[in-house]
């Protein structure tokens, strides 16, 4: 019984942590380029609805995931345009994208409410089913889950080991210096916004296509905002984001497992765990963030004209 619970929690932590890792990585890239994007909630919803719709119509979940990524990237161009070209306030621009995402996803998903889908194929880790104490249904994941951590390393490598990453971080730290060094700031910011939107869209589609396998309005439940909080927690570092995502995935799973096991705690209290945990984590680690945040985060750069 307890063994099952622990296995369930570990297995679920990884599964629910994966989509959050994708979206958090997207936000890390965006914020490293100096852009706080509160619109990820809307982008995830777009990804979830487009991904589900395309997967359902085409019968191929991977086509759905790909379409969701592209849709998320294109959708985030709205944010990029406002922030880069129009030099609008980033928080308000993010919220505009959020509103748009909530509304558009509801319209896209309307025809798909209540429909089911086969979802992504799950593969068990080879050899794990031979271990006697592991139950047969645990530790089998779809490919997106397996890719999540490697992609965090790829993001890390791009940000910290390539010229592109250096330029991107320079834009976030000191746009004036980056501009003086001949970097095209607007273009770099757009690239960051595209990657951020792509990852957000994939994360949303992962929720609808692979985990829930249904579409419901507002199904992301604030994960876009939690990702923003996790970026602060992870101190803008893609590898620390893995820890943050697992923490959140753990909170979600613990809640689901306790509910499934018929815990006497009210499901409403359990549902608060992820949000309360995110806030608590921010409180504990929040103090140190000033030194880790990109220096030009949220600022408007007027120089390049």
């Amino acid at each position, binding site marked *: 019984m307890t063994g099952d619970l622990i296995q369930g929690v570990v297995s679920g932590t990884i599964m629910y942590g994966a989509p959050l890792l994708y979206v958090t990585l997207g936000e890390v890239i965006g914020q490293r380029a100096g852009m706080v994007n509160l619109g990820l909630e809307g982008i995830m919803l777009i990804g979830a609805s487009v991904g589900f719709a395309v997967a359902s119509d085409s019968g191929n979940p991977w086509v759905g995931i790909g379409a969701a990524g592209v849709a998320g990237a294109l959708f985030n161009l709205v944010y990029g345009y406002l922030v880069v070209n129009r030099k*609008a306030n980033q928080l308000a*621009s993010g919220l505009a994208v959020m509103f*748009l995402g909530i509304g558009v996803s*509801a*319209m896209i998903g*309307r025809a798909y409410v209540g429909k089911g889908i086969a979802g992504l194929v799950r593969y068990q880790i080879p050899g794990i089913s031979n271990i006697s104490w592991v139950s047969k249904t645990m530790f089998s994941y779809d490919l997106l889950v397996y890719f999540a951590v490697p992609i965090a390393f790829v993001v890390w490598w791009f940000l910290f080991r390539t010229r592109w990453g250096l330029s991107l971080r320079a834009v976030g730290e000191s746009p004036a210096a980056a501009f003086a060094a001949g970097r095209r700031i607007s273009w770099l910011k757009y690239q960051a916004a595209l990657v951020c939107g792509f990852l957000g869209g994939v994360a949303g589609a992962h929720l609808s296509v692979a985990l829930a396998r249904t579409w419901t309005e507002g199904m992301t439940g604030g994960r876009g905002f939690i990702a923003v909080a996790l970026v602060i927690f992870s101190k803008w570092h893609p590898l620390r984001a893995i820890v943050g995502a697992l923490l959140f995935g753990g909170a979600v799973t613990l809640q689901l497992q306790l509910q499934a096991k018929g815990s006497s705690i009210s499901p409403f209290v359990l549902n608060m765990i992820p*949000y309360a945990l995110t806030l608590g984590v*921010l409180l504990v680690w*929040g*103090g140190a963030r000033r030194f880790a945040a990109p220096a030009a985060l949220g600022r408007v750069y007027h120089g390049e004209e």
Partner: protein
Amino acid sequence: MARLLRATVRKMQTGWVIAGRRYVIILVVAIAAYAAVLLLAGKDPIKAYVDTFSFTLGSSYGFSEVLVRMIPLLLTAVAVALPSRLGLINVGGEGQLYMGAWLATWGAITFTSLPQAAFVPLLIVLGFLGGGAWASVAGFFRARGLVNETITTLLMNYIAPLIIGFFVYGSWRSREIGASAFPQSPAFPSAARLPQFFGTRVHLGLVLALVALALYWFVVERTKWGLKMRAIGGNPEAARRVGIRLGIYMVTVMFVAGGIAGLAGMAEVSALFGRLRAGFSPGYGFVGFLISWLTNGSPLGILVMSFVLAIVFSGGSLLQITQGVPFAAINVLMAIILLVVLARPRLAWVPSRRRP
């Protein structure tokens, strides 16, 4: 003297004309863009607009419903506008609204034997306290430099409805026969219902909202505090050096703002439903944010835009029934309005205002 007066009046008039023209242009662009969205979704935009306007402005019942919708929008918009003077971004109107409703409900179902003359002030105080306490948490964290109030208020928006759910599905769940199908609190005693006027659903909340808006205008434009707030918002570092205690201002302002949003929640449950229900707000708190942002916190602008968005909301419910447009689609219209403002199209006939 008379010359000065005339000059001032003229200046004010041109200011109003510019502001008015700005809102009209924003709305025209947004309405056109939303029509395109409806068209893409396979709906008939012209019928949608005709239905919406003939219902909301063409019938006295429809108009009274617009006023009812306007109440929570006015209150939550003030709840965002006030802290924004300090440079604080309160995106938590939704959660604060729920917590105001929560504490007011506690009062209503606990002190059941009070007369109405005592109940109404009690509900106002409780609604204010509930929302205020909830918001001041975010103010406190910000004041201590721990977490940004934007992210705190956003996350707390997700917690507040769960608290409501905990009570309405739990200890407060009504045991009346026939009521059990829909989880909700017991009915408020009739003395705990805010009075409604003219045989419509328009209720005392409208008076509260207008008073809150007037007080907001007065404090911000006419008092020392308002000036200080603007000074802090404009340059917190300078304000700190002058010796203004920022933290106290932040917590107090967030408390008052949350309280005002709490009044909206209290008024909704007390006047309209007479019970607390899970998920009773269709996102009023977020719309309040939108209104405050669109109008730059101008009191007159808040009044006008609340009215306009109340029409949007009424239209949203109507179109859901008549054309099967999901209610969430009104978010698209709101987003388009916000996008137009943020993008500040540089056309000769659009008077744009620079934002900080």
